[in-house]
């Protein structure tokens, strides 16, 4: 059973809330992306995603159930014929909410809620990323000179250096490491230099 929504209804009463959510869903399906308040978007998300699920089923019964919520036939037709094929591969999560800022008049937090219509890119398994990370950590050890103390110290130094780079965002390092994906490569590139510095000090 779905958990009842906390707090007061949107608008004045239950029927007003139903109408507001139906109209917001219709606007979302016609424009693909609408700007609204955070509260309304959070209430709209389950409503809209349920309608998309009906659209993916695509039969007459589903269409009539959607029409019982959205009364505009053109919007429902567009939902069934144009939006449903685009999200056929997607297993839920048809909408995306991005926080924008605060409205000028009443300081209400505004968001952009949009349909996620991009083709699905399946998530890469974590094991591959772990293997690359382990390879990155293993590489400096392999490249480090034969001195035992330096090899032991090197991983600790790596951690410290990465932390400093992330926290300070030092002006020298930051431009090179601006991308999160690039940071790993940059860190692995930086570590041999660190290890050599260690060897120099010792």
């Amino acid at each position: 059973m779905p958990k009842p929504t906390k707090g007061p209804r949107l608008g004045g009463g239950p029927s007003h809330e139903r109408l507001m959510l139906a109209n917001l869903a219709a606007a979302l399906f016609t424009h693909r992306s609408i700007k609204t308040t955070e509260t309304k978007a959070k209430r709209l998300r389950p409503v809209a995603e349920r309608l998309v699920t009906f659209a993916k089923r695509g039969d007459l019964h589903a269409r009539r159930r959607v029409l019982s919520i959205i009364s505009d036939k053109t919007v429902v037709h567009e939902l069934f014929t144009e939006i449903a094929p685009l999200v056929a591969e997607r297993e839920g999560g048809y909408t995306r909410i991005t926080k924008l800022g605060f409205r000028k008049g009443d300081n209400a937090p505004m968001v952009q809620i949009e349909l996620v219509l991009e083709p699905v890119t399946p998530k890469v398994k974590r094991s591959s990323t772990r293997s690359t990370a382990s390879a990155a950590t293993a590489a400096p050890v392999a490249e480090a000179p034969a001195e035992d103390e330096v090899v032991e110290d090197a991983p600790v130094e790596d951690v410290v250096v990465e932390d400093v780079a992330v926290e300070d965002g030092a002006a020298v390092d930051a431009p090179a490491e601006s991308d999160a994906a690039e940071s790993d490569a940059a860190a692995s590139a930086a570590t041999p230099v660190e290890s050599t510095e260690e060897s120099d000090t010792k």
Partner: protein
Amino acid sequence: MAVPKRKMSRSNTRARRSQWKAEVPNLVKTVENGRVTYSLPHRAKVVEDSAGTPLYMEYKGRKVADV
């Protein structure tokens, strides 16, 4: 309609208002092209061109909305 029987004293008013406190927002520090900016986390940012004209709002490298 229920109405207050007595005037609220200045002391009580001020004691109540002393509990109004502003919260410090948790800002994220980012360095872009040597310029340090502080911004709220998980929120779209306005992208400006070189002249400082706002173009659009961006989040995680994706254009999300017009300004």
